[in-house]
């Protein structure tokens, strides 16, 4: 409704003025206003340039002027820049009657353009008594108000809606001016100093009546959205209001200076009041570092992102306008540039952004539009990937990543595709790189047989000890055989006892078979071969006498009777062989055992 009125007023009040390349509009939301009301004056300057000169307001003696906001829009269409800037002012009338808002002018490049004047009719406030042409009283006194003892007549309060905001989170500052007495003229308001904040006005100014301290007050309220720029302690300075209030003066008509005072002050006196609010201290919290997405650029609030292109089936080489819109609640002015994903199949041009702000319900919100020109390099199905935008959600106290879904384009073949392709049409017959990407999938193929064999061999584990063990065994055997071959005397000496034992085992078998004669021959052979091997003499021609001589020489301590067991065994075996009946032990079933004992003795005492 308000916008409709504003549009109507704009149409009635001041048409556009053009000069050079600039256009200026001025309009008000209403042309008739009560003395206790206000009007909104909007001045817009537009033209094909990125920076706009600031308009110059005319002298407005009939109004108190408050600057509330400005918004700047830049658009980039078909390679041309167009921008506009809108300034909003709140005008509070000071007098009843006709008032004129003079031409608003703007100068650029040596030329000046201005708007037409706007006539405003200021009417008395409903239900209030208005003095004639005397000092204006734009604020009605509360009806029936009567000062209570101790209650101030006039005061200022400043307050914020939160004391511990996050960095870049909106804090709404409210400054309220209360009065219960008649004001002489409009009060002058000095906004508080707000170092460390980014500020955004929240028009319009509110008015009303309220009960305080048991009495009725008329109040005016100005709200401002503040955004902490950094973490830590921040202070909002005092808001100041200077007002002139009516002071009752008792006038004695009989006093000598009665006339002088009557004409200089009238029947009422005035008093200047300087009122200040208390400073407000806040502590801004830093945004958490944990979970911060890589594409986070400082946005705080709640946002959504959408993306669209102006055509879905372009030709290769034709421009496609990609529009990415981030909108939501928060400090839209502070939104950083959006990060577009890699699009190797497109030629991507610089991004141009424009912004619009709104302050509905005292919350700063709006949208920022990023426009980029994409030129497909090749034909086929191309995809503008998913576009993400990260922000910190103060309600959920965590980072959130909003995303716009990917956009599929069906790019038809064009000139660019032909020039980027491979083949005779390519200049100088060389490849022309269009984009870089990973290579495609592989079919399900296993490793080559050779690789698999090698991998199996490598995973053999302990199996690989086998060749070493085998090699060691064969090497040991060979060395043993070589040593035996190179020392026949030693080999005979070392093998004598083993060979004798073998023959004794054979003799035992013969004895068990009842062949004592053959057994005796075998035992005799065992003895003679043993002695021959040990003494390194041929066993075939060895006689008992020769054997005993050699044994005596080997062990002189046993010479004589010490060698009797050898001689006796030798002779007994001869008897067993050639005259079994004369043998002292007959066929000698224990001959083998006695031979074992004899060899043991010889091995131990003589022939080791």
């Amino acid at each position, binding site marked *: 409704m308000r916008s409709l009125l504003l549009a109507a007023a704009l149409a009635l009040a001041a048409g556009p003025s053009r000069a050079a390349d600039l256009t200026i509009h001025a309009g008000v939301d209403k042309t008739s206003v009560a003395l206790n009301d206000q009007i909104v004056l909007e001045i817009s300057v537009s033209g094909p340039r990125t920076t706009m000169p600031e308009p110059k307001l005319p002298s407005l003696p009939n109004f108190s002027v408050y600057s509330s906001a400005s918004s700047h829009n830049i658009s980039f269409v078909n390679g041309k820049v167009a921008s506009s800037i809108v300034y909003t002012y709140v005008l509070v009338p000071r007098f009843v009657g006709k008032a004129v808002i003079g031409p608003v002018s703007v100068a650029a490049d040596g030329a000046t353009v201005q708007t037409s004047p706007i006539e405003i009719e200021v009417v008395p406030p409903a239900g209030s008594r208005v003095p004639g042409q005397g000092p204006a009283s734009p604020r009605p006194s509360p009806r029936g108000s009567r000062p209570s003892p101790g209650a101030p007549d006039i005061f200022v309060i400043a307050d914020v809606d939160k004391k511990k905001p996050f960095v870049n989170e909106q804090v709404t500052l409210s400054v309220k001016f209360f009065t219960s007495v008649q004001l002489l003229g409009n009060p002058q308001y000095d906004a508080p100093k707000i170092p460390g904040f980014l500020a955004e006005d929240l028009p319009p100014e509110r008015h009303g009546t309220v009960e305080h301290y048991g009495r009725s007050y008329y109040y005016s309220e100005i709200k401002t959205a503040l955004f902490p720029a950094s973490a830590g302690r921040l202070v909002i300075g005092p808001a100041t209001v200077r007002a002139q209030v009516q002071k009752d003066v008792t006038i004695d008509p009989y006093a000598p200076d009665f006339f002088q005072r009557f004409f200089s002050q009238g029947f009422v006196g005035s008093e200047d009041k300087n009122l200040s609010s208390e400073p407000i201290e806040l502590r801004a919290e830093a945004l958490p570092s944990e979970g911060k997405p890589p594409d986070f650029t400082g946005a705080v609030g709640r946002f959504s992102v959408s993306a669209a292109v102006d055509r879905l089936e372009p030709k290769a080489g034709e421009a496609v306008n990609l529009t990415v819109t981030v909108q939501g609640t928060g400090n839209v002015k502070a939104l950083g540039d959006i990060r577009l994903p890699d699009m190797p199949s497109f030629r991507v041009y610089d991004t141009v952004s424009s912004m619009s702000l709104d302050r509905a319900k005292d919350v700063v919100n709006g949208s920022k539009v990023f426009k980029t020109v994409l030129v497909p390099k090749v034909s086929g199905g191309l995809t503008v990937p998913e576009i993400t935008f990260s922000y910190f959600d103060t309600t959920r106290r965590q980072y959130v990543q909003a995303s716009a879904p990917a956009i599929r384009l069906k790019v038809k073949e064009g000139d660019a595709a032909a020039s980027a392709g491979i083949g005779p049409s390519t200049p100088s017959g060389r490849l022309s790189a269009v984009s870089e990407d*990973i290579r495609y*999938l*592989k079919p399900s193929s296993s490793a080559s047989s050779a690789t698999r064999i*090698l991998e199996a*061999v490598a995973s053999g584990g302990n199996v690989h000890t*086998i060749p070493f063990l085998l090699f060691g065994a064969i090497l040991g055997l*060979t060395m043993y055989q070589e040593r035996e071959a190179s020392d026949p005397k030693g080999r005979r000496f070392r093998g004598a006892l083993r060979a004798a034992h073998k023959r004794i085992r054979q003799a035992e078998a013969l004895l068990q078979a009842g062949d004592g004669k053959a057994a005796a021959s075998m035992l005799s052979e065992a003895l003679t071969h043993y002695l021959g091997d040990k003494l390194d003499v041929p066993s075939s021609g060895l006689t008992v006498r020769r054997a005993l001589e050699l044994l005596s020489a080997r062990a002189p301590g046993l010479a004589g009777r010490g060698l009797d067991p050898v001689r006796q065994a030798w002779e007994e075996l001869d008897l067993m062989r050639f005259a079994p009946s004369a043998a002292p032990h007959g066929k000698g079933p224990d001959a083998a055992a006695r031979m074992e004992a004899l060899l043991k003795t010889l091995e131990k005492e003589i022939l080791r």
Partner: protein
Amino acid sequence: MTLFFLPLLAAAALAAEPASPAAEDPFAKAAALYAAADYRGSEAAYAGRLAAEPRSASLHYNLGNALFKAGQLGRAIAMYQRAFDLRPRDRDIRYNLDFALKRAGEELVPAGVPPFLHYLFHFLSVQELAGLHWLACWVCLGLACGALLRRSASGPLAWWGAGALGAWLFFGAWWGLREAFEPDERGVVVKSTAEIRSGPGDNFSVAFTAPEGRRVSVLSENGRWVEIGLAKEGAKGWILVESIERVDRL
């Protein structure tokens, strides 16, 4: 006798033939999902298949592709690295690993190393080198045993033996160098701008950050924390276990 076990190993290896065509359906399904730009679905399909074929270079490569397209650079590099370990001569695997590494600020061929030398050094996988080393060992020792039994090491047997011994030493040295330069326990950072702390816990200060896709050596583990080393910078620190994908040698 000596060579008796090698045919057994070879037979065992050849017995592990690729799966039957019926079993390749999941592979084809994953490829179809990839072609339809459903990279998450493709990733899940390849990952499911990987359990059955943990030594398939193609599977690791394809899974790396799906992860790369899904925006998971770190895990993609881990998969490409495994594929490269298994089949280093494959040009596609080399290309994609290098492509992904460049996105993470690295290159497959380190600066200052001639690409040809790098290619030669990695011409064979570690498993292939180990296999050749052991094969040469068996042949060499087998021929030596034959020579001992024959009590003669002259003629062709001597030449074959010398060749086998040379191959054994050559592949053994190559294998040893690869083992020395490529640690068994490696990992890839899979979290964007991962924080590496001076100790295994949140109470230790952040020493430095590493970008997603950075390859690191794994030095030790302590609960949920893994100690990593970055040879190039000579830095080491502790990272949360979920911020790293292990790429231990298969």
